[in-house]
């Protein structure tokens, strides 16, 4: 069979179960694709081909006996944020460049328990802080998509840029990712892939390198909505090792894919109509509204009045939590230790300054500042109160709608090395303007590819659901996917 790498996760799992091909064949096809593409795309920062072949052989033995889990034999890519026992895990930071975990994250353990095969670890912004994958210690990822008539290298977005690029370029069937302010949904939108961040607490954070603990949440990046339901199903579980892990059953997400959206009330928030957003983004949003109307949904105008305060609120809370979480990197027990120190303070300061990149240091300092004596109430506590206002906006909106439709990003993929964004951190932060509200409120949000812009680059729509109502998000996401009929792939130049 040719082009096994082009299969969706669902078709691959079905094909493995019906023995149309073996996991060994599928795995070898991906290994070949990675070897030829990775020098150009830099999506993988570590490959685990020997492990993949061993896992594939074990899966084939199970499949031959008619056994195996829901992901049996399926080769996946793992964001370098997830601790994988015996496999280097760096969160793409210099300070963890030699870190080899002795334990496995709960999310990845769930995948191996379901029979998945690990191809390697995927590139990302350092500690997931970034929107372009340019803060990675291992260099940026390149988007497989290019603007029409241009050879300029584009960003796949961030922080899960490696995951998005690998899925879009068929370098894995699907990938794990993570989302603190938009890090699953923005890269998915930039690469024509599907990304969902579930309700906060659905996935265990145990073994995920921490950035901002009250916002971090795991989720998949996949080729289709149905695939995202399959992979998210595996990733979610209650876990006693994470005190914020929810003790609720995980529904059968795939059963919602293809479900009618007739009669659903779709909220369209006034405040997401921003000045300076390209007309194409607005046009795509209108198109999405029309598709859902045609499918029988009711369109409701809603107001989320505190939307404009979500990003500044996030840029207090996330750095505050990061400055506390990253205090653990002290050069003593693990991670980089300087060899230039004269005394104790030297060890701390030089190890950290040598190990952390520019953006991470900037955020640690912002976090330290807003938590410091005299500013704690004015910045940090204030932001926590605004966060509640933002969450309340959604609670009020659910009185008149069941799900919310917005654009996923304020632009299509931009060029790597964008000077304006490099010079002004706030300009880069604005990438998350449509996605960050759901992290603050803990809600599920999905990005679905819905069309191409005039340059031939993918654009996404975002579906936001109520707490624990991923089901409706999958139903609406699948309806958009079907109406859009998005089947474009980047032309292979790598």
């Amino acid at each position, binding site marked *: 069979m040719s082009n096994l790498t082009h299969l969706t996760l669902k078709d691959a799992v079905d094909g493995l179960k019906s023995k149309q091909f073996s996991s060994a064949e599928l795995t070898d096809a991906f290994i070949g694709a990675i070897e030829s593409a990775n020098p150009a795309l830099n999506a993988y920062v570590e490959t685990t081909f020997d492990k993949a072949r061993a896992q594939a052989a074990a899966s084939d033995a199970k499949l031959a006996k008619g056994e195996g889990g829901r992901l049996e034999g399926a080769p996946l890519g793992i964001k370098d944020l997830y601790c994988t026992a015996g496999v280097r895990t760096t969160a793409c930071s210099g300070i963890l460049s*030699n*870190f*080899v975990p*002795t*334990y496995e994250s709960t999310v990845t353990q769930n995948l191996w328990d379901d029979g998945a095969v690990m191809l390697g670890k995927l590139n990302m912004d350092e500690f997931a802080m970034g929107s372009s994958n340019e803060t990675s210690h291992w260099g940026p990822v390149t988007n497989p998509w290019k603007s029409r008539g241009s050879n300029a290298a584009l960003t796949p977005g961030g922080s899960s840029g490696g995951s998005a690029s690998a899925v879009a370029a068929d370098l894995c069937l699907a990938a794990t990712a993570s989302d603190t302010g938009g890090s699953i949904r923005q890269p998915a939108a930039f690469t024509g892939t599907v990304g969902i961040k579930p309700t*906060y*607490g659905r996935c265990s954070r145990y073994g995920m390198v921490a950035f901002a603990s*009250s916002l971090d949440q795991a989720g998949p990046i996949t080729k289709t909505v149905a695939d995202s339901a399959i992979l998210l199903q595996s990733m979610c579980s209650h876990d*006693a090792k994470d*005190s*914020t892990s*929810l*003790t609720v059953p995980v529904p059968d997400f795939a059963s919602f894919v293809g479900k009618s959206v007739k009669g659903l009330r779709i909220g369209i928030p006034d405040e997401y109509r921003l000045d300076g957003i390209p007309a194409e983004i607005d046009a795509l949003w209108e198109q999405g509204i029309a598709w859902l109307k045609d499918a029988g949904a009711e369109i409701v105008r809603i107001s989320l009045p505190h939307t*404009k*305060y979500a990003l*500044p609120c996030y*840029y*207090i809370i996330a750095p505050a939590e990061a400055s506390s979480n990253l*205090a653990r990197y*002290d*050069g*003593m*027990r*693990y*991670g980089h*230790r300087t060899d230039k*120190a004269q*005394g*104790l*303070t030297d*060890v*701390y*300061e*030089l190890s*950290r*300054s040598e190990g952390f990149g520019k953006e991470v*240091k*900037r955020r*640690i*300092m*912002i976090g*330290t*500042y807003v938590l*410091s004596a005299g500013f704690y109430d004015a910045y940090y*506590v*204030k*932001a*926590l*109160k*605004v*966060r*509640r*206002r933002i*969450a309340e906006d959604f609670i009020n909106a659910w009185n008149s709608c069941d799900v919310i439709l917005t654009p996923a990003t304020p632009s299509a993929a931009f060029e790597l090395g964008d000077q304006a964004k490099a010079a002004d*951190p*706030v300009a880069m932060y604005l990438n998350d303007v449509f996605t960050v509200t759901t992290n*603050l*409120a*803990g809600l599920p949000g999905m990005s679905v590819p819905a069309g191409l812009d005039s340059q031939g680059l993918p654009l996404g729509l975002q579906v936001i659901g109520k*707490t624990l109502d991923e089901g409706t998000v999958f139903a609406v996401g699948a309806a958009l996917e079907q109406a859009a009929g998005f089947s474009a792939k980047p032309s292979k130049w790598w």
Partner: protein
Amino acid sequence: MAIDVATVKKVASLSRLREPEDRLQALSGELSGILGWIEQLNEVDVAGVEPMTTAVEQPTPLRDDVVSDGDKVAQVVANAPKTAEGFFIVPKVVE
């Protein structure tokens, strides 16, 4: 609020970071820009609003107070920059 170079130095030190002198001026501009943008939160009326520290509604779980893990010295020190006989070796801190 403008963050001057002296404040940058102080915040870097509280953060246990050491930034080179030639980076301080740029950092002062970057941090001032970010904090200036954040100031817009002052427009929001938050009178009587409880701070929101988590999106999780359920109470924090408690586990039984029993030993559930341990005896993993080799794993604990496996990634240490320097170890000896199951201990972390750290730089001399008391002269």
